[in-house]
């Protein structure tokens, strides 16, 4: 996953392993990875912005646009338990994806 301001907080290896175990092409795997990672990213962004005061939301979006991770953390540090919140929402959606894979891949798992 591309490095983001929250990369150090989340763990996606289990998702990647589940995708690796599917008998799908490399291109198909890449598509699914992109969809999953982008969904996780949007979820995290929503979580953070929902916890910011109105005046800080614009700055957060601009820092994200500029990939200024240091400024992002300076801005969001006042959110109580922000690291936990980010990890929690990211891992929840990750687990949904893993559950989808397990549910739909019974017959196509690589031997």
């Amino acid at each position, binding site marked *: 996953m591309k490095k983001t301001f929250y990369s150090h907080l989340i763990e996606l290896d289990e998702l990647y392993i589940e995708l690796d175990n599917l*008998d799908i092409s490399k*291109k198909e795997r890449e598509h*699914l990875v992109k969809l999953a990672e982008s*969904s996780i990213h949007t979820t995290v962004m929503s979580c953070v912005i929902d916890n910011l005061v109105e005046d800080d939301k614009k700055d957060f979006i601009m820092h994200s*646009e500029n990939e200024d991770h240091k400024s992002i953390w300076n801005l969001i540090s006042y959110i109580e338990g922000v690291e936990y919140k980010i990890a929690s929402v990211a891992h929840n959606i990750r687990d949904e*994806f893993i559950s989808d894979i397990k549910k739909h891949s019974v017959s196509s798992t690589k031997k």
Partner: protein
Amino acid sequence: MFFKKQKKNTYEILRNKWAKKHALLQKDFISSNAHIIEELKDKSKHFAVGSLGGIILFSTPIVSGIDVQKAESNEMVFEDIDKQMFMITDLSEYLPKDPTTGLTSGQEKIIGEILSRDFGLDIRAEIDGKRLERNYGLIGAEQHLMRYPGDNMASHFQSPDEAQVYYSSGMAPGRGGFGYFTYSRETLTQKEVEREKYYIAVQTFRAPGYMENIREYVDFFKFRKMLLVNPHNGKAIVTVIGDAGPGVSTGKHLGGSPEIMKYLERVDGRSRGPVLFFFINDPEDRVSLGPIEPGGVKAIDHIENSNQL
């Protein structure tokens, strides 16, 4: 055969489910934060609405020019994100890491096929035995071109909004490499307006065979339609060749009008980036100029087109 069918279903099932979820998440984000995004868009012309403040992890933008206020009703826009993502992934398999190296004939063929398939157009590297030296390279910024004798910055734009965004690019001194687009202000039609708006400059003088048949090649290249694609964000635009250049010493391989550069989200200078540029075979002149999306759908331009001249 049964196993193959199951395998395809697994990918398709997951893709369809995740694509819907993805689209809904982004739609909710935009809807909830529409007022902020609109404010940033208005205040800063450098704010890349296309990437919407970093909410999109990969450089796959929501269609530039989306009316954020209407995002809730525009399901189609969000589905297009996935078409662009797939195209980006497909292209990335065949593009060289270094855009200055150009494409091999094999890469050119496959990329032409991908673009033809994704845009529903007849995309080619060569028409009637004529081609440019390359189809992938670094794009730089061009200025506005005089459309007719006497055209100037005061008369050039169709709306104050357009002027506000594009005025600073300035106008090139003298005519473009193919002359004026029309004879006078009175003979200017929407066709010429769009040709200048969506023009590119390409290195016609480096085309194989050019020096031996200059007249023939000039006639071939003049206002020839080309598809430009930014492979990093999937944005594509139908353009015409309106000028010759840039000079070889610039290190750039083609130039884009201010409108093209803004739409593709490409900048000049140190952050210069590559684009793909292929001919569109359109003998009956049916393909409209301007932004286009995979599926052949005309994208919403970021400045509303005005029909007033």
